């Protein structure tokens, strides 16, 4: 923890003095960075991290369509990428991360009780990159399960929360979206849910009809999407 604090101090300092060439912070617009990233003990190779001026940051696995983790504060320490040869090629988030999931956000399930897949095979998801909006925030594009998918993750209200909108089109079948997974999920009014001992809160757009289901390890919050459909929710932690 001490070490982490020190890094954040360095980060703040670096913005003023440019002392460390390896600490990256988004100053007046978002900074997007492709890298390897350690997640749940595994090196992920097709990851993009997004840092914002509001200091709300996240990491996203482009080959799973998965929002891996979110954190507030400093953005990234790229020392292990940019110092010498950068052998680990690992970006390190400069903050306490809230771990979400490396599993794909979307899946075609045989029925509503079928288990959620841990991953999607490399060749079954074609990542198409991303486009930036006026504020330079990305919308990720991919095709999977025959559907064209856009996944826009933006900052809400000056940094109070992240907003995510997943849209699918041309799907041959309805797809499920797993909005959350955790040891526990509690429903509240206004389509709001708390996950895992209130680690974070989700608010789904009005009219969205999610359902909670039990799994061996806990609970999942799912939404069924039509062949052309979209889903918006916010994430606050």
């Amino acid at each position, binding site marked *: 923890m001490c070490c982490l604090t020190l890094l954040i101090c360095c980060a703040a300092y670096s913005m003023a003095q440019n002392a460390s060439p390896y600490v990256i912070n988004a100053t007046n617009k978002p900074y997007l*960075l*492709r*890298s390897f990233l350690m997640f749940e003990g595994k090196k992920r190779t097709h990851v993009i991290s997004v840092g914002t001026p509001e200091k709300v940051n996240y990491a996203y696995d482009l080959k799973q369509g998965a929002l891996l983790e979110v954190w507030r504060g400093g953005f990234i320490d790229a020392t292990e990428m940019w110092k010498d040869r950068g*052998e680990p*090629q690992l970006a390190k988030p400069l903050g306490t991360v809230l771990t979400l999931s490396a599993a794909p956000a979307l899946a075609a399930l045989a029925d509503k009780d079928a288990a959620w897949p841990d991953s999607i095979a490399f060749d079954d998801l074609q990542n198409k990159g991303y*486009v*930036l909006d006026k504020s330079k925030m990305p919308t990720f594009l991919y095709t999977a399960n025959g559907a064209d998918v856009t996944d826009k993750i933006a900052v809400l209200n000056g940094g109070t929360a992240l907003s995510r909108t997943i849209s699918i089109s041309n799907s041959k079948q309805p797809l499920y979206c797993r909005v959350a997974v955790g040891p526990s999920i509690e429903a509240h009014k206004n389509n709001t849910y708390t996950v895992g001992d209130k680690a974070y809160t989700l608010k789904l757009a009005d009219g969205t009809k999610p359902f909670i289901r039990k799994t061996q390890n806990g609970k999942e919050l799912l939404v069924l999407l039509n062949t052309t459909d979209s889903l918006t929710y916010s994430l606050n932690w």
Partner: protein
Amino acid sequence: MKKSTYLLSLLLLGTGLVTVKAQTQTEKQIYPIVTVPIPKEIALEVGGMTFLPNDELAVATRKGEVWMITNPYMKNGQQPKYRLFAHGMHEILGLNYIKGDIYLTQRAEITRLRDLDGDGEADEYRTMYSWPLSGNYHEYAYGPILDKDGNMVVTLNLGWIGYGASLSKWHGWMLKFTPDFKLKPFATGFRSPAALALNSDGEIFYAENQGDWVGSGSITHVEEGDFVGNPAGLIWADEPGSPVKLHKKDIPDTGEPEFEVAKRVPGLKTPSVWIPHSIMGNSTSGILNYSDNGNMGPFKGQLFVGDQSKSNINRVFLEKVKGVYQGVVFPFRRGFSSGILRMNWGSDGSMLVGMTSRGWSSTGKAEYGLQRLTWSGIMPFEVQTVKAQPDGFELEFTMPVDEKTARDAGTYRLSTFTYKYHHIYGSPVINQSARSIKAIVVSPDHKRVRLVLDSLKEGYIHEIKMEGLRAENSNIPLLHDYGYYTLNKIPDGEKITLTAENKPTGNAQAAHHMEGMDHQQMGNMPAAGGVVKGNTDVGKHVTQQPEIWTKGPDKTIVLGTKPGLKFDMTNIILKAGTKVKLTFNNVDDMLHNFVLTTPGSGNAVGEMALKMGLNGEKYDFVPSTPKVLAYTVLLQPGKSDTIYFTVPKTPGTYPFICTYPGHYMVMKGQIKVIK
């Protein structure tokens, strides 16, 4: 007193020589280098470069940015302007403007960048094709270039786990992509294919770096289904779409020359032109075809090949004999500021040279750089082409040669050699032998000289040195008087009949010159120090504990390496006279040794090792000099060597270095000897 008189006369003699050589050409005079200034806040570690139609230079960096540079020529005395176009990509090592769009390769993919809203910054980062990665740092990706049929071409580096390995699909391969980005695996056997380009025939050539299964750097013509040498990529040969039919078990690991193995392993493609390691280059990394866009003197249609480690550019002339490309490499220009990775033609015919040295040291000391190579318009006196003949070579010159020196056998020195083909990193020079000249014919216009040799050795590299040759009238020596011809095929045709008329004048240089040839010369620079011989004093490499050390060593040291050419200890303090057992573990991905020198001699010993030429590796790059006190052998990655030595009695600071060419400037430490 007598001694100083002698010295004085030597000095006078030296002055005399300078006067005689007053007209000697220099690289600097003929090919000036102009540094393009880079703003302080930009780390322009060049990974890719391309010009846009509006003459902006787009430069991609290893930190994932794309910069747009206007006026890199500094026309009208104006400074170039830099604008950040895109950022955040993963170690970009190739950038190209193709069919109206900017394409690049980052580690995981080919990306297309577009500025949709016209604000001068990319806002669409489109993944055109994505390949798997294992997470190994060595899985670099290069390209794309456009082939003559409209496909894009990329190459993928092998991973490194103590040896080259294809840890994820298509690493170690050259891949083609159709205009709608369907993948076509094209060829394999690649190790570290840092550059690819088309020659003037539209054929694909790639640059390879020395390593396992690669005795020396080279450039190689790549055709569909080729296997170019490193077997790691063959694990994907059975994948759908693979045009390669070989398997790892088909590749013998005997240490025979690669061309010999290729005779019985159909599909194994040998280099078109070897670029002899440590003499011509250490890290082949950029290829630029001398097209009509360039203005570099009389070498149109040839290839310029950059070197990351030596910060130099070589020049390659290719010809096709019996359907196979082969040719000669000559030095062209050295002295760039950092490690050369990319070269492009500017709109004025100058060559933009983009550089980086982070993690991979280079002769040019800067961490990164952008320079512009220009031609003064002065005609260099150079060997323009070398063409294989049934009985020797025909050398064509950029200006008429002096007939007297051209006809003199003593002007030339020729030899042949090759490398081992094996899983071991690099290779010593093997099967080296001198060639003698049987006839010399000078063309009537004095621009061509035909050398008839005692024999040609098919498959071998032919070293051609011409120190004594002079230009007609001006009497100047060649700007570069040596080159290396890779003779893949001996052409058919008429041989020259030996006559009294074409019999060489003068005496051939004796064969004993072969040992320790002085390859240190780049251009016609003075041969400072002459030949450097290899160490033969076994007392400096003691691998058994001396019997008189009855109580064993006083101190045991285990030294290792760190990535980026470093020892893991750089300051060791020892008492004078300490008996030391030192184990050096090379855990890096390159060859290294440990050489302990006398105080203040680190750089001098490193420089001497550079001058050992073709024989360097045979002697572990340890020069014969009293400045060397103790050393380990040259270690393969993952290997170690233990030596015993006694710390000198005189207190002081004793440098230790790695003398592998190019390493000593950064890979060093010191033993501080105290009383």
